[in-house]
């Protein structure tokens, strides 16, 4: 196929373009950074001219851009988007017959399917095992460990703008942080919605989603700190993150952010335990991190993310924790049982190689077109 690939995101972008080229597709790229996702005449014009000048079979992007969707619709060209953010903030104005939208979150997909959208599909994420194997070679033997327990991820320490817009009052801000804190105690129950509805906070309809997102990010922040703090009382913890703010108050080894392609794979492989605490805005989907950990031969302990159970088996491929106490016990146990850890890492690695490589995923995507 002749593909015009829209470049704007970081993760998976270069992996995907590389794989598409290797599969024999003709690939051109167009790069842009949107300020306003809703209206941008300059870009719309630029894209239209490009698409009229050269004939493409599809336009492809990671995440969804309404303006691309509009232009493609006008010109009758298929627009393929693979959404891997939850929630997808730019996912609006998407009901066009030329769109082929792939969602990585099954519960989101089911929601749209129930509404009758036949152009929306479910496509979980995947990892580029080909690139990873170029880095290390295949996973043969138990690696040399540099770290005990690693956590790689953003801590979301800044309580976001939409909340600051809602209220000036420190007390009100405190209440919202309290709501987020309470939500950390529950995996499947949504406490935020009833709390906000009964709270008496005034906000506009269209800022409700943004408020919920911010509360979930705050819940994620608190949860990650809670867990790292608790674990740091028992074990040595290595944190790879853009921030070290509140975590500066408790004893962990802080390393700064890790580069996705050049550093992250080594961290995953060289940690005895890789911890995943899923971003709270991702309801059921498997985050990219988990596929990457498996693809790098890492051993995973994670919150029990629902869709994981569709493809992987607890205690065979990874270990889920059910509470903070449970997490501490499991970390203690598995730090002392390296063989079991490696056996699970191998099992997950095999499964990813067989069914969850980016190569396989892209094939699945093209089959739906």
């Amino acid at each position, binding site marked *: 196929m002749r593909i015009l690939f829209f470049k704007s995101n970081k993760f998976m972008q270069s992996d995907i373009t590389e794989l598409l080229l290797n599969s024999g597709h003709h690939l051109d790229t167009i790069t842009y950074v949107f300020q306003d996702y809703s209206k941008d005449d300059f870009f719309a014009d630029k894209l239209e001219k490009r698409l009229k000048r050269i004939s493409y079979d599809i336009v492809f992007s990671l995440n969804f851009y309404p303006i691309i969707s509009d232009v493609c619709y006008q010109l009758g060209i298929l627009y393929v988007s693979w959404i891997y953010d939850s929630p997808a903030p730019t996912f609006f104005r998407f009901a066009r017959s030329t769109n082929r939208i792939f969602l990585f979150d099954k519960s989101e997909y089911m929601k749209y399917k129930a509404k009758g959208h036949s152009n929306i599909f479910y496509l979980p994420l995947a990892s580029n095992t080909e690139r990873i194997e170029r880095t290390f070679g295949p996973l043969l033997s138990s690696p040399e460990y540099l770290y005990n327990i690693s956590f790689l991820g953003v801590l979301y320490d800044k309580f976001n703008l939409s909340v600051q817009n809602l209220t000036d*009052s*420190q*007390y*009100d*801000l*405190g*209440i*919202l*942080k*309290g*709501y987020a*804190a*309470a*939500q*950390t*105690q529950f995996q499947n129950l949504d*406490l935020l919605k*009833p*709390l906000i509805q*009964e*709270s008496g906070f005034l906000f506009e309809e269209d800022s409700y989603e943004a408020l919920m997102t911010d509360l979930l990010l705050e819940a994620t922040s*608190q949860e990650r*700190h*809670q867990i790292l*703090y608790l674990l740091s009382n028992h074990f040595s913890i290595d944190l790879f993150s853009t921030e070290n703010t*509140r975590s500066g*108050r*408790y004893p962990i080894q802080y390393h700064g952010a890790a580069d996705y392609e050049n550093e992250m794979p080594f961290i995953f492989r060289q940690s005895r335990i890789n911890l995943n605490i899923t971003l709270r805005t991702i309801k059921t989907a498997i985050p990219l991190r988990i596929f990457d950990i498996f693809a790098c031969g890492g051993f995973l302990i994670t919150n029990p993310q629902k869709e994981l159970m569709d493809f992987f088996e607890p205690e065979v491929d990874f270990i889920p924790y059910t509470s*903070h106490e449970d997490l501490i016990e499991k970390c203690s146990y598995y730090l002392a049982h390296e063989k079991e850890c490696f056996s699970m890492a191998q099992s997950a690695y095999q499964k990813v190689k067989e069914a969850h490589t980016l190569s396989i995923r892209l094939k699945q995507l093209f089959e739906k077109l």
Partner: protein
Amino acid sequence: MNLLFTTQKLYNEPDMIDTFEKLGHSVFIYEQQKQNNRDCSDLTETLLHLQHTNSISFVFSLRFSSIVSNACHETGIPYVCWCTVVSPELYQRSVLYDTNYLFFYDSMIFSSLIQLGITHGYYLPLAAAERPAPMTPNDYTCDINFVGSLYTVWPGIGKLSKLSPVTLGYLDGILQAQEMIYGYPFLQNLITPAILEELSSCIPFDKKYELKSPEVFYTEDYLYKILNRNERIHILQKLTALREEKRILLYAPEKILPDKINIENSGTLISRNDLLAIYRQSHITLNITNRTLYNGIPQKVFDAMAEGSLVFSNYQQDMDLFFENEKDYICYEDNEDLLEKANYYLSHPEICQKIIANAHKKIDQEHLYRNRIGELMKQLPFSR
């Protein structure tokens, strides 16, 4: 067996002494005076004397006492305590002595004390005292009663106001969330190191709690009390809607009722008999469990069932062990649900009567003091 019953002027002591005697045991009484809790010398002397003369098998009380625990530890006589009344002394080191045989009526507190390391711990729910006369149909003079404190006045309630606005907001936020959730107390999990630091600067940690963590101290002694207040006020505000058509009896110690509770407050009850009479006269007895009783079945439930009143209660996990919702009592899920169900059951007296009769039968057969003391004696390794 011979036992020394140490009394602390508790409501259930006379009936319990009676029960032991009816079961064939000989009860010696020791009245505890209020003392410095390290000085157990008088009791120790008494025990040594009794050991020689009457061969006491164990000492018994209905509330955990450090003095008794210390005396028993010194003399090697077992201290059997059915902890029917909350005592802060439960969190002192003397609770860990291996001469203690401790019975708890809350399954969560029971397991947390086991984890703390007590040697002989058992679960034993509360019960009703035996009624001499068989139950006859009640003469109901009121539709719903609520007897209890609204927690609007207690020492320390003002201390939290010294906290920063953002922390006050945070605590209010988590309290609002906990109010919606029954069966899973999580406030203690949300006291971060930063919040703990701020709390400690306003309210010094009470050192008498040798075995309580600071997080648990601040949540149990302050936050859950505020939650009790909020919850009870919200429920009574809701029930005010029934005031026109239904007779509601409220017995709360508060001199001034909070806003929007337009129910007449009859004040505090004088005696336990008065209390039981209130249950007897009420179609419905409302139970709103103290939030620091995490799973346990409160005394009120057994008493009201025994007196022939329909029990309305929030969800308490231990209830599931013995009673069935809608068969023996009514469990309400939130305030709306409480109001709806109150209206429904008050309009269907025949259904009420069935449930009341079921509950009463169960109490009579399985939930009297003699059932519990029998169970307790069976569990004690030295009573065989």
